[in-house]
């Protein structure tokens, strides 16, 4: 059955983001006018690992048969590569806390500091390395999107701060960037809140906003001079934040994308929530509001239940499968659903036309998890999917097997180069970028 383009868009609509957004938000010329060499990066993180026996294709190269977990890649095989053999040894230690270490270093490949207090320390994540080099070219340097905000009861794992399991984007070794989990908040971040005002008022507010931000920053600076070190550090956070927003505010009002209807702030079921947030991320890329985004389907060690696909137990709980067949079966089901969400996002990017080709052709869309086997908290043989052409730097549709325990930081180093970011190394063990990824 062939689907009209409109029908495909309709099928993809989430509940909160009712149709009008997609119809009227067909992107304008703005992003087609972006520089030819502009590259996009999107990291799609899923928690608690993937069962590799049902993920890894049995053959290498092109034309591999799709294993169980990858079934939903049917129809888009040419766009997605499977990369196996990577390890993140920075997360491996002989003590508890694998989810904190794995998720914390998922995009940083740095060893994290074992603390539950305020002296957290990590590295800079690969998406932020790109954002810091290229983010000034778009309205939003980057977007961090998630589903669970993270409860505020109970602890996070094994004496590690919750910051490590709840965030994958780190702007500096001490600054995790929190996720936006509310569709309405994400929409407002993308299109600004003055969207509904008349132009005169909008202009007035914009100027006032800029001058107010400037003034409060001065206030903070003068307050800082009278403070001790730790208070100074707190105000440093404030100042950095205000300065970044100031830059954004001065740029706001550009872009040619029609935002469409603002989604209501309703509580969504898990599946709809994921759909809505991924739709908004695609919209952000289509409108060239940003070229760097990360998505967390859940926090590290997430205990999301998957009743709607017949798995009532908590994800983290059954990821400790102990070899039990029922648990493994449930885990494969969850993983298949996760890949399906990724496939949906990749499909939408593949169908977003640009001057020659699609949005996907200039992107790298990376799917991964902090571990492979959840029972042993294995930081090797990590599950990796990579979609998108990166403007010719990446030939997709292939299963590439890398030498055992190849540092995943070297995949990230290659990604930086592919997207035009100069770097000699990445993380603690990313020294030699991958080669041959374009053929």
């Amino acid at each position: 059955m062939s689907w009209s383009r409109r029908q495909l868009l309709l099928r993809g609509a989430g509940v909160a983001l009712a149709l009008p957004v997609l119809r009227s938000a067909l992107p304008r010329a703005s992003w087609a006018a972006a520089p030819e060499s502009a590259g996009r990066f999107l990291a799609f993180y899923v928690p608690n690992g993937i069962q590799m026996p049902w993920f890894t294709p049995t053959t290498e190269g092109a034309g591999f048969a799709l294993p169980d977990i990858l079934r939903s890649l049917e129809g888009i095989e040419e766009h997605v590569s499977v990369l196996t053999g990577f390890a993140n040894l920075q997360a491996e230690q002989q003590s508890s806390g694998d989810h904190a270490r794995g998720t914390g270093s998922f995009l940083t490949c740095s060893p994290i500091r074992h603390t539950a207090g305020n002296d957290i320390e990590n590295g800079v994540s690969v998406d932020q390395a790109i954002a810091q080099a290229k983010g000034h070219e778009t309205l939003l340097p980057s977007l961090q999107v998630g589903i669970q905000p993270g409860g505020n009861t109970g602890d996070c794992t094994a004496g590690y701060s919750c910051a490590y399991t709840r965030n994958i984007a780190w702007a500096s070794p001490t600054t995790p960037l929190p996720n936006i989990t509310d569709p309405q908040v994400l929409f407002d971040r993308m299109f600004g809140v003055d969207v509904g005002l008349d132009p005169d008022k909008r202009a007035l507010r914009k100027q006032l906003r800029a001058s107010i931000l400037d003034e409060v920053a001065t206030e903070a600076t003068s307050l800082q001079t009278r403070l001790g070190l730790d208070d100074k550090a707190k105000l440093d956070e404030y100042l950095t934040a205000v300065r970044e927003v100031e830059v954004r505010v001065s740029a706001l009002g550009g872009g040619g994308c029609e935002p469409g209807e603002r989604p209501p702030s309703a509580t969504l079921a898990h599946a709809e929530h994921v759909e809505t947030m991924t739709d908004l991320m695609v919209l952000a890329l289509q409108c060239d509001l940003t070229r760097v985004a990360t998505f967390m389907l859940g926090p590290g060690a997430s205990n999301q239940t998957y009743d709607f696909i017949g798995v009532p137990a908590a994800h983290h709980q059954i990821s400790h499968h102990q070899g039990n067949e029922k648990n493994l079966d449930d885990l494969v089901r969850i993983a298949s659903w996760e890949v399906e969400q990724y496939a949906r996002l990749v499909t939408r990017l593949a169908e977003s036309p640009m001057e020659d080709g699609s949005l996907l052709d200039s992107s790298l869309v990376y799917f991964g998890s902090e571990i492979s086997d959840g029972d042993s908290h294995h930081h090797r043989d990590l599950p990796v999917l990579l979609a998108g052409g990166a403007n010719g730097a990446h030939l997709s549709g292939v299963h590439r097997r890398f030498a055992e325990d190849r540092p995943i930081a070297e995949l990230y180093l290659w990604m930086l180069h592919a997207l035009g970011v100069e770097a000699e190394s990445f993380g603690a063990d990313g020294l030699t970028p991958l080669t041959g990824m374009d053929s």
Partner: protein
Amino acid sequence: MRWILLFGVVGCGGGGGGADAGLDAATADPGRVVLHRLNRAEYNNTVRDLFGTALRPADRFPSDDFGLGFDNQAHVLSLSPLHIEQYDQAADELLDELFAVGFIPTATQTIEAEGPDVTADNGAVWDLTGWVLWTEGALSGDVWLDQSGDYTLQVDAYGLQGGDEPVQMAVIVDGVEVDVHDVEAEASEAFSARLSLDAGMHTVSMAFLNDYKDPALGIDRNLVVDRFALTGPLEVPRTPPAGRGLVLTCDPAVVGEGVCVAQITRDFGLRAWRRPLSEAEVATKLQHYTTARGLGGDWNEGVRAVLRSLLLSPHFIYRGTPNPLVGVGRTLNGHELASRLSYFIWSSTPDDRLLQLAATDALTDPAVLDAEARRMLTDPRATALIDNLAGQWLGIRKIEEAQPAASLYPEFDEGLRASMKREAELFVQGILLADRSALELMSAPETWVDQRLAAHYGIAVPDGPGMHRVEVPDRIGLMSKSGLLAALSYPTRTSPVVRGKWVLENLMCTPPPPPPPGVEGLPAQQSDTAMSLRETMEQHRSDPVCAACHVKMDAAGFALEPFDALGRARTLDDYGFPIDATGTWGEGGPAFDGPTELAAVLVEDPAFPTCIASKTFTYALGRPPTDTDDAFLAEIEAAFATADHRFTDLVVAIVQSRAFREQGVTP
């Protein structure tokens, strides 16, 4: 890693605690709290009190960083660019309401066709996300609207097409047909209508009109409904908040525009920054007014700009006491003390009375401080202690996170969850904010049930709506509360380890260290014969390395096994074996059998009142107690004990402590 090496040597848990006779509360360093960002609850309460608004803008802020069991720890709370944007947006929302600009926000209620809140004449769940109507008939759901007004009704539906006509659907509200649609799409399409509806209950139906089958040709026409949603009330103009007069404290037409904006700046500044502004600060803020007027804005826009700048300032966002660069510690001044007091007891900004007392430094007088603390504890705002302190420490917020598997526990729904949460809140409030010993948290015989919860417990159902105070046999204390028990279980079964660990962490303040790597999860069933949960976990007791920490944790957990994963009483565990709820509290300690006896043993443990004091101290100050606080804690615990462990007296003892009233130099 450290924990492994020290495992067998140090043993389990055991916090610093205990008085150190060498330190004197009169001379010990009172410690320091770093600049303290308002958390979400505090932000919401603060704007509620500043503006008299019902808006809760902080509900959309990023989750607060969480440390030591609380989301109000000064050194852990961080601030990102997202926060600044959200503060800006929150200011907009509050000011829109203040100046009655625009419309009130709409709310959407969505009913999923495959969910539990609908009835249908025929059909079945289709494709996991919808409901198919095989033949003519309707799918209906009820929605309660709080307000009258205009609403948008959106129905998402599609057809399984066949034959000459497209699928036809009628949308019916309260028995009256609103629309008839041709549903041509084969994937979910939206159909919207705008309706005028009164407050109250409404029934929305989607009817399939033109069933058609031709089995010979394999044709079967059906309607699939995905969901429907009501959004509104639409375009209802805002009305200013109750506290409008608190903010706009003068009329520009009477005293002059310039004079008025200056007065508003001083008045609102004092309340928002929790201290009076200096003349230089007032002048800086008034510049925004001047700028706005210069750009062509009217008086409202000018005032708006000033108020916004006050709300975005670090002086609003951070409470707390900037620490001197050099020199010795100091006593907090009246305003700083007022702020600490109100955020401790109310999670909100100081009220006018506190600000007045602060202005004269009267608050630094211990008698005045005592009286104010007691006054504040009787104020309705003191329920913030239940929402925030007890909410986190005693697990009430955890009830929001319970996820019992629908397939195994179909009787659990949001209604039951709400009743469970209310039960826990009323129970804790009835002890902490009343004239009773806080130790009764462990041993009080009463609880609170509505009709739903009474049925859940299998006791006589009370007359009438709302929560009623009852005594349920064999359910005493906090550990028997159904909501907490459900929150401390897995979706598919109970977990003695989760429950036991919680008891140790939160009621005894002796958290067990993390498990050694590789032992998470139950071992695979080894033998041919199935085992009870207790037998399966036997290794915890037989292996001395495990036993060091598990001996108390498991004992407490198994004593609670007579409550299932929804907190109902039972005699068989989740594997079908009779429950053995016996145990002792530590090697050679007092024995118990079941939850009631466990509570009777724990209430005697001196670790319990020490833990109550320590947790409350951590929450009150926004920092954990360090070794140098031992002297203060000893003093506080002594006062607590003398007062028969009344919680209100604990609060006063903490507030009177030098650790609360002073700021030291050591970080």
